[in-house]
């Protein structure tokens, strides 16, 4: 036998989310975002090679499939809700329900879209469909990455190295939930609601404050300090690559358990309550930390409720608040460039004081 085995076919499976080692905060942050997308995006800060990308890409596999109208490039949900694309929106609004019922729905996996650093505006926003243009002389819109990410996750690794003009574009879309294209004679609006997940190492450049603000949660990842954990990372990865199928089978139960946990948390979410005295503590905490505006309170509240739902609790407890306060607040402190006390430390200090 000449040549070597083909590598292209081996790695098509994603490492299972439940097999990640020692990154509890990141895992919790991502899970919260899957339970309540309104929390906003998740920013993952930390060293290289700590499994940031692995975690995000593994996320898709534990998420329950989406119900979407068949053939819709934006995966619009069935029913007459806000934020449908042009085609689905008009058919839903203008017609009787009997007509709408004709639209078939399908189950599709939740998209987790990678936005590579070198991506062009065309690829992100979408552009004229060259193929249709050339073969049929038809001006059609070819959806870009933002369209692909609708109702799912948009992942940007090394987000702090992203070109400024691309950042501008993302900020706008992430805020409005829709992508407006007015170029090359095209005029298209389509829904682009996604959970923005960014990762990067703050040592290599700061993030623009406007972009920071778009993230509901900021989690920190570290290389595990514990040698045994570091070893586990390597051993599990090796086991996975040696025989992915066996490895997936070993974690199949954990994966479906996690999926069930997410599904029931989503159902429970609207029933989770937050006691008045805790609400007061949240306000107190945010005030003392001097977070800008009310976004800190809001995202802490939402995150705490989602975290409670994940635990199957109907009430937010002090414990839960303490768990999620750092990730909801650490990136919202007013930036004093001269104070190099780690934001996490500052938050933790006050959390220990206030949340007792």
């Amino acid at each position: 036998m000449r040549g070597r085995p083909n590598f292209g076919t081996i790695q098509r499976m994603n490492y299972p989310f439940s097999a990640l080692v020692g990154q509890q905060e990141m895992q919790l942050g991502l899970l919260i975002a899957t339970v309540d997308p309104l929390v906003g995006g998740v920013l993952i800060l930390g060293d290289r090679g700590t499994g940031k990308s692995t975690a995000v890409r593994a996320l898709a596999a534990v998420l329950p499939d989406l119900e979407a109208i068949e053939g819709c490039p934006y995966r619009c949900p069935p029913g007459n809700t806000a934020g449908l694309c042009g085609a689905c929106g008009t058919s839903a609004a203008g017609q009787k329900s009997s007509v709408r019922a004709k639209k078939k729905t399908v189950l599709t996996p939740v998209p987790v879209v990678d936005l590579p650093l070198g991506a062009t505006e065309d690829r992100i926003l979408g552009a004229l469909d060259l193929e249709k243009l050339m073969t049929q002389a038809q001006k059609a819109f070819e959806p870009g990455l933002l369209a692909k990410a609708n109702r799912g996750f948009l992942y940007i690794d090394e987000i702090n190295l992203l070109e400024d003009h691309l950042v501008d574009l993302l900020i706008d879309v992430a805020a409005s939930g829709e992508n407006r294209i007015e170029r090359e004679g095209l005029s298209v609006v389509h829904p682009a609601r996604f959970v923005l997940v960014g990762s990067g190492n703050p040592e290599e450049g700061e993030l623009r404050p406007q972009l920071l603000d778009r993230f509901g949660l900021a989690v920190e990842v570290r290389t595990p300090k514990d040698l045994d954990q570091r070893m586990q990372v390597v051993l599990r990865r090796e086991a996975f690559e040696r025989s992915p199928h066996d490895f997936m089978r070993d974690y199949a139960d954990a994966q479906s358990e996690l999926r069930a946990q997410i599904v029931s948390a989503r159902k429970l979410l609207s029933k989770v309550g937050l006691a008045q005295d805790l609400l007061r503590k949240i306000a107190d905490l945010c005030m003392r930390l001097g977070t800008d505006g009310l976004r800190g309170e809001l995202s802490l509240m939402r995150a705490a409720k989602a975290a409670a739902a994940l635990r199957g609790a109907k009430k937010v407890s002090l414990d839960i608040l303490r768990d999620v306060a750092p990730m909801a607040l650490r990136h919202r402190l007013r930036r004093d460039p001269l104070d190099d006390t780690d934001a996490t430390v500052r938050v933790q200090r006050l959390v220990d004081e206030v949340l007792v």
Partner: protein
Amino acid sequence: MAQLVEPQETVKAVRTEDAILAAAAVAVAGPALGGLWLRGWHGPRRDAFLRLVDRYAGALLVRTHRIAPHTDPEQLLAGIELSETLRAGRIVQRAGLIENLQGGLLVLAMAERAPIALLAPMIQAIDAQRVCLLAIDESLPDALRLPALLQDRLGMGVDLRDEMVLWPVDSDLYQTAFAQALALRLTDAAHHWKEVIASPEAVKALVEAAAQLGILSSRASLYAVRLAKLSAALAGRSMVEADDLAVAVRLVLLPQARQLPAAAAHEEDGMQSAEEGTSEPDDPQDAPRNEEEPTRPKPPLPPETEQDSEASPPEPAEASSALPDGAAERLVAAALATLPKHLLAQLAASSSTARSKAAGATGAGAQAMKGRGRGRSIGALPRRRPRSGERLHLLASIRAAAPFQALRRRVSGEDTFSPNSLVRLDADDQTRRLLHSGTSGKVLEMRPDDLHVHREKKRRGNTTVFVVDASGSMALQRLSEAKGAIEILLADCYVRRDRVAMIAFRGKGAEVLLDPTRSLVAAKRSLTALPGGGGSPVAAGLALAAQMVAQLKRMGDSTVVVVLTDGRANLTRDGLPGRQQAALEAQQMARFLAVSADKRLLIDTSMRPEPAAQALAAAMRGMYMPMPFAQAREMGQAVIAAQLKA
């Protein structure tokens, strides 16, 4: 820790064999190892190495392709073949370079100069194990570095910069006995290396070695385990043995090392007291605790362990108890013994400033890449008459023309009767003939209105270089005030998203404390760590600043140099005492800065305005500002105002 010192001949042999093994590894399992970081300039040894890689790759039918840093990123990925499409009148797809390689080898020359747009698709492909990248890095010690996000993904490193410890210049690597032996086992290894067993002890030793060398990324440990397996497979073994671990440390871990093992323990102490246990992102606290303990006698690695450790990951506790103590330490020490002296010194130096400098350094590479985005196309602009110097945006032009083709063909057919169109018809005929030549007769009807040009981004980055006098004449009090002033300026730079760099001079010379970075964390840290005392080699500091300014200008940045000194130079550039000569040299360098840096500012840090500082400011034709006794904050404000006016 006592360093073993290997005799030069042994080191030569080891390094040569390592290079050969790396070449074989690239061919056998390139994508599993991410890639190879090949450092060194063009020369016979590099050619010999690349030839060897080609031989091995050829033997395994691994495709290779070499690209330059100015390659169009679109070539890497699949897309539409424009010219074919136009000729055929239907869409013709073109496969991307990476796809075409089918898990083969991509050779990137001058990788340190490659823009991020080119690297991004490669990095994605590497992460998916779809390609192996051989990145040739020709960077100078102080210039652009290979971006950290790429370096981290290249599993192996081969350093050809120190020719003293490599193979003889005229030797054909492939003819060496070692290379021949590997050649015989290539195919076998390619099929079976994944089945090689690495005991938990072996894995643990590598993970621990990585921790001792200050490597934070777990990618390195993964790559090290894989390389150890490969090395075993290439030696015809089915178990990873001590030799394989050693070669994995040398080829995978050492190139990524950020500190010497001894420094790890030191740093840990220093840091915890200094920072009250604050946790910074690259905190090297994961350095093993047993560092400080005296090394116990080490049993050799168990040669064979029969347990089927690979099938199910063992419990952490079990694994740790089975580890022979100090195995990792021994591995690291042995590997370090093969490092040429100056590289070892470099590593030691970076250990001492690891916290301030390494962070800045990684940032520098990444940021520099971004800085080079100047003039990059960011879209198309309609332009009836492209001006000189503008590039025609072919794709956009064709896009604009395409929807009207059917219409235009019809119209131009009817148009022939109108007298007005006669002139244009001639022109059209010419174009038509041009496009007709040898094709199916389909013509693209273009109008001036369709033309688009590239819209280019011409943003100039701004970098402020601080040159800080930390000599003894700067009393500690003044030094801390100067630090305060810099902090204010840093805040200002942050607001404007400028980059900052920092140079300090004291004692015998000057050093770069911080490469240009946009990271405030790194800047603050390097400033806090700055010690004072010693002579005052002003000229050396200014010379280093000039060097950095020149580099920044090459990258298209505009520069502001802020010098904080009392101007009383007493050491020459060579570190020799002598006030007169020192002052003379300082003046010279200041005049040099006057023409190279875009804006210059000198802050006199002496108690009352100092003539020497004034003279220096005049020589660099910059603004002069005595540091008042006021609060640093107020002074900073004054500086900002002055700076903006300048």
